Protein backbone atom coordinates (compact mmCIF):
# COMPACT_ATOMS: atom_id res chain seq x y z
CA UNK A 1 0.00 0.00 0.00
CA UNK A 2 1.43 3.35 -1.02
CA UNK A 3 0.93 6.26 1.37
CA UNK A 4 1.36 9.76 -0.04
CA UNK A 5 1.98 13.12 1.60
CA UNK A 6 2.08 16.49 -0.18
CA UNK A 7 3.10 19.75 1.44
CA UNK A 8 4.99 22.99 0.85
CA UNK A 9 8.43 23.68 2.26
CA UNK A 10 11.60 25.52 1.26
CA UNK A 11 9.52 27.56 -1.18
CA UNK A 12 8.68 24.40 -3.15
CA UNK A 13 6.02 21.75 -3.52
CA UNK A 14 7.04 18.52 -1.77
CA UNK A 15 5.80 14.95 -2.23
CA UNK A 16 6.67 11.95 -0.08
CA UNK A 17 5.59 8.37 -0.81
CA UNK A 18 6.01 5.25 1.28
CA UNK A 19 5.08 1.77 0.08
CA UNK A 20 4.48 -0.13 3.28
CA UNK A 21 1.99 -2.33 5.10
CA UNK A 22 3.29 -1.19 8.46
CA UNK A 23 0.72 0.48 10.67
CA UNK A 24 3.35 3.06 11.56
CA UNK A 25 3.99 4.04 7.93
CA UNK A 26 1.31 6.75 7.77
CA UNK A 27 2.41 8.06 11.14
CA UNK A 28 6.02 8.23 9.96
CA UNK A 29 5.04 9.93 6.71
CA UNK A 30 3.19 12.61 8.66
CA UNK A 31 6.52 13.52 10.25
CA UNK A 32 8.16 14.49 6.95
CA UNK A 33 6.86 18.10 6.90
CA UNK A 34 8.12 18.49 10.46
CA UNK A 35 11.61 17.38 9.43
CA UNK A 36 11.62 19.82 6.51
CA UNK A 37 10.52 22.66 8.75
CA UNK A 38 13.39 21.93 11.13
CA UNK A 39 15.91 21.82 8.28
CA UNK A 40 14.56 24.98 6.69
CA UNK A 41 14.98 26.78 9.99
CA UNK A 42 18.69 25.94 9.74
CA UNK A 43 19.41 26.22 6.02
CA UNK A 44 17.17 28.93 4.52
CA UNK A 45 18.75 32.18 3.42
CA UNK A 46 15.31 33.77 3.26
CA UNK A 47 14.74 33.51 7.02
CA UNK A 48 16.39 36.16 9.09
CA UNK A 49 16.51 33.86 12.10
CA UNK A 50 17.95 30.80 10.32
CA UNK A 51 21.34 29.46 11.27
CA UNK A 52 22.61 30.20 7.76
CA UNK A 53 21.56 33.85 8.03
CA UNK A 54 23.25 34.08 11.40
CA UNK A 55 26.48 32.63 10.03
CA UNK A 56 26.38 35.01 7.05
CA UNK A 57 25.76 38.00 9.32
CA UNK A 58 28.73 36.97 11.46
CA UNK A 59 31.21 36.69 8.61
CA UNK A 60 34.71 37.23 9.94
CA UNK A 61 33.96 35.49 13.22
CA UNK A 62 34.46 31.85 14.11
CA UNK A 63 31.15 30.11 14.80
CA UNK A 64 30.20 26.65 15.90
CA UNK A 65 27.40 25.23 13.77
CA UNK A 66 24.79 22.51 14.23
CA UNK A 67 25.09 18.96 12.95
CA UNK A 68 22.63 19.61 10.08
CA UNK A 69 24.49 22.76 9.04
CA UNK A 70 27.80 20.94 9.17
CA UNK A 71 26.56 18.03 7.03
CA UNK A 72 25.24 20.33 4.31
CA UNK A 73 28.33 22.53 4.47
CA UNK A 74 30.58 19.50 3.93
CA UNK A 75 28.38 18.39 1.06
CA UNK A 76 28.66 21.83 -0.53
CA UNK A 77 32.46 21.64 -0.29
CA UNK A 78 32.44 18.20 -1.90
CA UNK A 79 30.13 19.40 -4.67
CA UNK A 80 32.41 22.32 -5.41
CA UNK A 81 35.42 20.02 -5.52
CA UNK A 82 33.74 17.51 -7.84
CA UNK A 83 32.45 20.22 -10.16
CA UNK A 84 35.84 21.88 -10.42
CA UNK A 85 34.46 25.06 -8.87
CA UNK A 86 31.53 25.37 -11.31
CA UNK A 87 29.05 24.88 -8.49
CA UNK A 88 29.98 27.06 -5.56
CA UNK A 89 28.21 27.79 -2.26
CA UNK A 90 29.69 31.29 -2.41
CA UNK A 91 27.35 32.69 -5.06
CA UNK A 92 24.99 34.44 -2.67
CA UNK A 93 26.24 37.94 -3.42
CA UNK A 94 25.94 37.28 -7.16
CA UNK A 95 22.37 36.06 -6.69
CA UNK A 96 21.47 39.17 -4.75
CA UNK A 97 23.15 41.31 -7.37
CA UNK A 98 21.07 39.62 -10.06
CA UNK A 99 17.91 40.41 -8.13
CA UNK A 100 17.15 37.13 -6.37
CA UNK A 101 16.61 38.81 -3.03
CA UNK A 102 13.65 36.98 -1.61
CA UNK A 103 11.83 33.70 -1.75
CA UNK A 104 10.65 33.13 -5.32
CA UNK A 105 7.06 32.73 -4.20
CA UNK A 106 6.92 36.48 -3.64
CA UNK A 107 8.62 37.52 -6.88
CA UNK A 108 5.88 37.45 -9.58
CA UNK A 109 4.32 40.81 -8.66
CA UNK A 110 7.68 42.49 -8.91
CA UNK A 111 8.41 40.68 -12.17
CA UNK A 112 5.28 42.17 -13.67
CA UNK A 113 6.39 45.62 -12.59
CA UNK A 114 9.86 45.05 -14.03
CA UNK A 115 11.46 46.16 -10.80
CA UNK A 116 15.13 45.74 -10.08
CA UNK A 117 14.21 44.61 -6.55
CA UNK A 118 15.58 47.77 -5.06
CA UNK A 119 19.17 46.66 -5.34
CA UNK A 120 21.79 48.84 -6.99
CA UNK A 121 22.65 47.94 -10.53
CA UNK A 122 26.39 47.96 -9.92
CA UNK A 123 28.13 44.98 -11.50
CA UNK A 124 30.21 42.51 -9.57
CA UNK A 125 33.92 42.43 -10.08
CA UNK A 126 33.43 39.57 -12.53
CA UNK A 127 34.51 36.72 -10.36
CA UNK A 128 33.20 34.52 -7.59
CA UNK A 129 35.26 33.65 -4.59
CA UNK A 130 36.10 29.98 -4.26
CA UNK A 131 37.22 27.80 -1.40
CA UNK A 132 40.75 27.84 -2.80
CA UNK A 133 41.00 31.49 -1.93
CA UNK A 134 40.84 30.52 1.72
CA UNK A 135 37.77 32.62 2.30
CA UNK A 136 36.45 29.95 4.59
CA UNK A 137 38.24 28.29 7.47
CA UNK A 138 36.67 25.32 9.17
CA UNK A 139 37.53 22.83 11.87
CA UNK A 140 36.05 19.34 11.66
CA UNK A 141 36.65 18.49 15.30
CA UNK A 142 34.65 21.39 16.70
CA UNK A 143 32.31 21.91 13.70
CA UNK A 144 33.30 25.55 13.57
CA UNK A 145 33.37 27.84 10.53
CA UNK A 146 34.82 31.27 9.88
CA UNK A 147 33.85 33.14 6.73
CA UNK A 148 35.96 35.94 5.36
CA UNK A 149 34.21 39.29 5.92
CA UNK A 150 33.10 39.56 2.26
CA UNK A 151 32.08 35.88 1.83
CA UNK A 152 28.52 34.61 2.21
CA UNK A 153 27.05 31.16 1.84
CA UNK A 154 24.03 29.90 -0.07
CA UNK A 155 23.48 26.13 -0.09
CA UNK A 156 20.67 26.30 -2.68
CA UNK A 157 20.05 23.02 -4.46
CA UNK A 158 22.56 21.17 -2.31
CA UNK A 159 20.35 21.74 0.74
CA UNK A 160 17.25 20.57 -1.08
CA UNK A 161 18.97 17.46 -2.40
CA UNK A 162 20.33 16.69 1.06
CA UNK A 163 16.86 17.11 2.58
CA UNK A 164 15.22 14.78 0.02
CA UNK A 165 17.95 12.17 0.51
CA UNK A 166 17.87 12.36 4.31
CA UNK A 167 14.07 12.13 4.46
CA UNK A 168 14.13 9.14 2.12
CA UNK A 169 16.68 7.38 4.35
CA UNK A 170 14.51 7.97 7.40
CA UNK A 171 11.45 6.55 5.63
CA UNK A 172 12.99 3.51 3.98
CA UNK A 173 13.05 1.65 7.29
CA UNK A 174 9.33 1.05 6.70
CA UNK A 175 9.39 0.24 2.99
CA UNK A 176 10.21 1.60 -0.45
CA UNK A 177 10.29 5.38 -0.21
CA UNK A 178 10.26 8.33 -2.61
CA UNK A 179 10.82 11.95 -1.56
CA UNK A 180 10.40 14.75 -4.09
CA UNK A 181 11.73 18.09 -2.88
CA UNK A 182 10.55 20.56 -5.51
CA UNK A 183 11.72 18.36 -8.39
CA UNK A 184 14.79 16.79 -6.74
CA UNK A 185 13.74 13.20 -6.13
CA UNK A 186 15.32 10.55 -3.89
CA UNK A 187 14.13 6.96 -4.32
CA UNK A 188 15.11 4.05 -2.07
CA UNK A 189 14.25 1.22 -4.48
CA UNK A 190 11.51 -0.53 -6.42
CA UNK A 191 7.99 -0.60 -5.07
CA UNK A 192 6.91 -3.60 -2.97
CA UNK A 193 5.32 -5.25 -6.04
CA UNK A 194 8.62 -5.07 -7.91
CA UNK A 195 7.51 -2.25 -10.18
CA UNK A 196 9.56 0.93 -10.65
CA UNK A 197 8.22 4.28 -9.46
CA UNK A 198 6.79 6.31 -12.35
CA UNK A 199 8.41 9.76 -12.43
CA UNK A 200 7.40 12.37 -14.99
CA UNK A 201 9.68 14.97 -16.58
CA UNK A 202 7.95 18.33 -16.73
CA UNK A 203 7.72 20.11 -20.06
CA UNK A 204 9.56 23.43 -19.62
CA UNK A 205 7.53 24.96 -22.45
CA UNK A 206 4.10 24.04 -21.13
CA UNK A 207 3.01 24.34 -17.51
CA UNK A 208 1.51 21.03 -16.43
CA UNK A 209 2.84 19.19 -19.49
CA UNK A 210 5.14 16.19 -19.47
CA UNK A 211 7.84 15.30 -22.00
CA UNK A 212 8.69 11.80 -20.78
CA UNK A 213 8.00 9.24 -18.08
CA UNK A 214 10.88 7.60 -16.21
CA UNK A 215 10.91 4.24 -14.46
CA UNK A 216 12.93 4.62 -11.31
CA UNK A 217 14.37 2.16 -8.82
CA UNK A 218 17.08 3.05 -6.31
CA UNK A 219 18.43 6.32 -7.67
CA UNK A 220 18.27 10.09 -7.55
CA UNK A 221 16.62 12.32 -10.16
CA UNK A 222 16.99 16.07 -10.43
CA UNK A 223 16.14 18.80 -12.91
CA UNK A 224 17.80 22.15 -13.11
CA UNK A 225 16.83 24.91 -15.47
CA UNK A 226 16.27 28.52 -16.28
CA UNK A 227 12.64 28.03 -17.26
CA UNK A 228 10.89 28.85 -14.00
CA UNK A 229 12.99 30.90 -11.57
CA UNK A 230 13.63 33.80 -13.88
CA UNK A 231 12.78 37.46 -13.55
CA UNK A 232 13.35 40.75 -15.30
CA UNK A 233 15.90 43.17 -13.93
CA UNK A 234 15.50 46.37 -15.87
CA UNK A 235 15.21 45.11 -19.44
CA UNK A 236 17.28 41.97 -18.90
CA UNK A 237 15.94 38.53 -18.03
CA UNK A 238 17.84 36.99 -15.14
CA UNK A 239 17.75 33.51 -13.61
CA UNK A 240 19.02 31.84 -10.46
CA UNK A 241 21.82 29.66 -11.84
CA UNK A 242 25.03 31.62 -11.39
CA UNK A 243 28.16 30.85 -13.38
CA UNK A 244 31.04 31.42 -10.92
CA UNK A 245 33.37 32.09 -13.85
CA UNK A 246 31.52 35.29 -14.68
CA UNK A 247 29.61 36.09 -11.52
CA UNK A 248 26.41 36.42 -13.55
CA UNK A 249 23.48 34.16 -14.41
CA UNK A 250 24.83 31.49 -16.74
CA UNK A 251 24.62 32.20 -20.45
CA UNK A 252 23.41 28.85 -21.67
CA UNK A 253 21.36 27.26 -24.43
CA UNK A 254 20.02 24.64 -22.02
CA UNK A 255 16.52 25.46 -20.82
CA UNK A 256 16.32 22.45 -18.50
CA UNK A 257 18.42 19.38 -17.75
CA UNK A 258 17.10 16.22 -16.09
CA UNK A 259 19.71 13.89 -14.63
CA UNK A 260 19.46 10.37 -13.19
CA UNK A 261 22.31 9.35 -10.89
CA UNK A 262 23.15 7.08 -7.97
CA UNK A 263 21.60 9.53 -5.55
CA UNK A 264 19.75 12.81 -5.71
CA UNK A 265 22.67 14.90 -4.44
CA UNK A 266 24.82 13.73 -7.33
CA UNK A 267 21.93 14.20 -9.78
CA UNK A 268 21.34 17.76 -8.57
CA UNK A 269 25.01 18.63 -8.92
CA UNK A 270 25.17 17.15 -12.42
CA UNK A 271 21.99 18.92 -13.57
CA UNK A 272 23.28 22.31 -12.53
CA UNK A 273 26.67 21.55 -14.06
CA UNK A 274 25.13 20.75 -17.46
CA UNK A 275 23.01 23.92 -17.45
CA UNK A 276 26.00 26.13 -16.64
CA UNK A 277 28.27 24.45 -19.18
CA UNK A 278 25.71 24.56 -22.00
CA UNK A 279 24.61 21.73 -24.29
CA UNK A 280 27.88 21.02 -26.09
CA UNK A 281 30.27 21.02 -23.14
CA UNK A 282 27.59 19.74 -20.77
CA UNK A 283 26.82 16.67 -22.84
CA UNK A 284 30.52 16.02 -23.32
CA UNK A 285 31.07 16.22 -19.56
CA UNK A 286 28.06 14.00 -18.98
CA UNK A 287 29.36 11.23 -21.24
CA UNK A 288 32.47 11.02 -19.06
CA UNK A 289 30.49 10.50 -15.87
CA UNK A 290 29.86 6.83 -15.11
CA UNK A 291 26.42 6.13 -13.71
CA UNK A 292 24.90 9.48 -14.66
CA UNK A 293 22.46 9.83 -17.55
CA UNK A 294 20.58 12.88 -18.67
CA UNK A 295 18.10 14.62 -20.94
CA UNK A 296 18.67 18.20 -22.07
CA UNK A 297 15.91 20.41 -23.42
CA UNK A 298 17.30 23.41 -25.25
CA UNK A 299 15.98 26.94 -25.59
CA UNK A 300 15.21 26.21 -29.26
CA UNK A 301 13.07 23.20 -28.30
CA UNK A 302 15.55 20.51 -29.34
CA UNK A 303 16.10 17.55 -27.03
CA UNK A 304 19.45 15.87 -26.47
CA UNK A 305 20.20 12.90 -24.25
CA UNK A 306 23.14 10.83 -23.10
CA UNK A 307 23.62 7.42 -24.64
CA UNK A 308 21.95 5.26 -21.98
CA UNK A 309 19.24 7.65 -20.91
CA UNK A 310 16.63 5.64 -22.82
CA UNK A 311 17.16 2.77 -20.33
CA UNK A 312 15.14 4.82 -17.85
CA UNK A 313 12.25 5.65 -20.15
CA UNK A 314 8.89 4.00 -19.60
CA UNK A 315 8.01 2.30 -22.87
Amino acid at each position, binding site marked *: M*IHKKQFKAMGCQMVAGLDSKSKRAAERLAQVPVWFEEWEAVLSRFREDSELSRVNRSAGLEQTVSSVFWQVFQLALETERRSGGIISPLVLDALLQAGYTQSFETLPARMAAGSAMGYPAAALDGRIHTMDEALIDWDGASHSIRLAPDAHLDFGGVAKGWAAHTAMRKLEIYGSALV*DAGGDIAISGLQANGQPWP*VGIADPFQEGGQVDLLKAGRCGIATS*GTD*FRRWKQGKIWQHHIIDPRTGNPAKTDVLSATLVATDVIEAEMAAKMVVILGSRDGLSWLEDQPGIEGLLILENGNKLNSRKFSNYLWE
Partner: protein
Amino acid sequence: MNQKKSHPRKPNTGMRGVKYMILSVGLTSILGFWGLFSRQAAAAGLVNPSSSGNNNTLYLQPSGSNFIVLPAVPTLVPQGAPGSSQGGVPFNFNQAPQSSFGFFQNGSSFGQFNRPSPFATTRSSR
Protein backbone atom coordinates in the same frame (compact mmCIF):
# COMPACT_ATOMS: atom_id res chain seq x y z
CA MET B 1 -65.94 -92.22 -21.87
CA ASN B 2 -64.50 -90.37 -19.21
CA GLN B 3 -63.86 -87.15 -20.77
CA LYS B 4 -62.34 -84.40 -19.01
CA LYS B 5 -64.49 -81.48 -19.18
CA SER B 6 -62.57 -78.54 -20.27
CA HIS B 7 -63.64 -75.26 -18.95
CA PRO B 8 -62.65 -72.05 -20.58
CA ARG B 9 -60.39 -70.02 -18.30
CA LYS B 10 -62.05 -67.21 -16.69
CA PRO B 11 -60.09 -64.03 -16.98
CA ASN B 12 -58.40 -62.96 -13.77
CA THR B 13 -60.23 -59.69 -13.48
CA GLY B 14 -58.66 -58.86 -10.13
CA MET B 15 -55.11 -58.80 -11.43
CA ARG B 16 -56.13 -56.95 -14.53
CA GLY B 17 -57.68 -54.25 -12.43
CA VAL B 18 -54.54 -53.85 -10.43
CA LYS B 19 -52.48 -53.48 -13.62
CA TYR B 20 -54.80 -50.84 -15.01
CA MET B 21 -54.68 -49.01 -11.76
CA ILE B 22 -50.86 -48.99 -11.65
CA LEU B 23 -50.66 -47.80 -15.26
CA SER B 24 -53.21 -45.07 -14.70
CA VAL B 25 -51.55 -43.80 -11.57
CA GLY B 26 -48.14 -43.84 -13.29
CA LEU B 27 -49.32 -41.88 -16.29
CA THR B 28 -51.22 -39.43 -14.15
CA SER B 29 -48.22 -38.89 -11.97
CA ILE B 30 -45.91 -38.24 -14.92
CA LEU B 31 -48.30 -35.82 -16.57
CA GLY B 32 -49.03 -34.14 -13.26
CA PHE B 33 -45.41 -33.54 -12.33
CA TRP B 34 -44.63 -32.40 -15.90
CA GLY B 35 -47.30 -29.77 -15.74
CA LEU B 36 -46.32 -28.69 -12.29
CA PHE B 37 -42.65 -28.25 -13.18
CA SER B 38 -43.57 -26.36 -16.34
CA ARG B 39 -45.52 -23.79 -14.38
CA GLN B 40 -42.77 -23.38 -11.78
CA ALA B 41 -40.13 -22.98 -14.46
CA ALA B 42 -42.14 -20.28 -16.17
CA ALA B 43 -42.67 -18.49 -12.89
CA ALA B 44 -38.96 -18.52 -12.10
CA GLY B 45 -38.04 -17.13 -15.51
CA LEU B 46 -35.37 -19.67 -16.30
CA VAL B 47 -35.57 -19.10 -19.98
CA ASN B 48 -33.67 -17.54 -22.86
CA PRO B 49 -30.28 -16.30 -21.54
CA SER B 50 -28.94 -13.55 -23.72
CA SER B 51 -26.09 -11.08 -23.54
CA SER B 52 -25.81 -7.43 -24.33
CA GLY B 53 -23.11 -6.22 -26.66
CA ASN B 54 -22.90 -2.78 -25.09
CA ASN B 55 -20.90 -3.61 -22.01
CA ASN B 56 -19.60 -6.42 -19.93
CA THR B 57 -22.92 -7.12 -18.20
CA LEU B 58 -24.59 -10.48 -18.78
CA TYR B 59 -28.39 -10.35 -18.65
CA LEU B 60 -30.59 -13.33 -17.90
CA GLN B 61 -33.75 -12.07 -19.52
CA PRO B 62 -36.96 -13.51 -18.03
CA SER B 63 -40.46 -13.38 -19.40
CA GLY B 64 -41.63 -11.05 -16.69
CA SER B 65 -40.83 -7.39 -16.09
CA ASN B 66 -38.21 -7.96 -13.38
CA PHE B 67 -34.87 -9.37 -14.44
CA ILE B 68 -31.66 -10.41 -12.84
CA VAL B 69 -28.40 -8.55 -13.67
CA LEU B 70 -25.19 -10.36 -12.91
CA PRO B 71 -21.88 -8.50 -12.93
CA ALA B 72 -19.74 -9.91 -15.67
CA VAL B 73 -16.02 -10.46 -15.31
CA PRO B 74 -14.22 -7.74 -17.29
CA THR B 75 -12.11 -9.56 -19.78
CA LEU B 76 -9.80 -6.67 -20.69
CA VAL B 77 -8.59 -5.70 -17.22
CA PRO B 78 -6.45 -7.99 -15.06
CA GLN B 79 -8.24 -9.07 -11.94
CA GLY B 80 -7.36 -7.00 -8.96
CA ALA B 81 -5.97 -4.22 -11.08
CA PRO B 82 -7.11 -0.68 -10.49
CA GLY B 83 -10.30 -0.11 -12.42
CA SER B 84 -11.45 -3.71 -12.46
CA SER B 85 -15.13 -4.33 -11.87
CA GLN B 86 -16.14 -4.67 -8.26
CA GLY B 87 -19.37 -5.02 -6.34
CA GLY B 88 -21.60 -5.50 -9.34
CA VAL B 89 -20.63 -2.18 -10.89
CA PRO B 90 -19.61 -2.60 -14.51
CA PHE B 91 -16.22 -1.09 -15.37
CA ASN B 92 -16.43 1.90 -17.62
CA PHE B 93 -13.32 2.09 -19.75
CA ASN B 94 -13.95 5.74 -20.54
CA GLN B 95 -13.99 6.88 -16.94
CA ALA B 96 -10.78 6.40 -14.99
CA PRO B 97 -11.23 5.70 -11.29
CA GLN B 98 -8.94 7.28 -8.73
CA SER B 99 -6.43 5.18 -6.91
CA SER B 100 -4.53 5.86 -3.74
CA PHE B 101 -1.20 5.93 -5.55
CA GLY B 102 -1.86 8.06 -8.54
CA PHE B 103 -2.44 5.48 -11.22
CA PHE B 104 -5.27 6.16 -13.65
CA GLN B 105 -5.55 9.77 -12.66
CA ASN B 106 -6.13 12.51 -15.20
CA GLY B 107 -8.44 10.42 -17.34
CA SER B 108 -6.00 7.81 -18.54
CA SER B 109 -7.71 5.07 -20.48
CA PHE B 110 -7.31 1.39 -21.08
CA GLY B 111 -4.75 1.97 -23.79
CA GLN B 112 -2.41 3.54 -21.22
CA PHE B 113 -2.76 0.81 -18.63
CA ASN B 114 0.92 -0.06 -18.67
CA ARG B 115 2.00 3.59 -18.60
CA PRO B 116 0.84 4.92 -15.26
CA SER B 117 0.47 8.52 -14.23
CA PRO B 118 3.61 9.83 -12.53
CA PHE B 119 3.79 9.57 -8.78
CA ALA B 120 6.10 12.57 -8.79
CA THR B 121 7.43 14.96 -11.41
CA THR B 122 10.96 16.25 -11.74
CA ARG B 123 11.24 19.89 -12.79
CA SER B 124 13.42 22.88 -12.18
CA SER B 125 12.92 24.18 -8.65
CA ARG B 126 9.40 25.37 -7.91
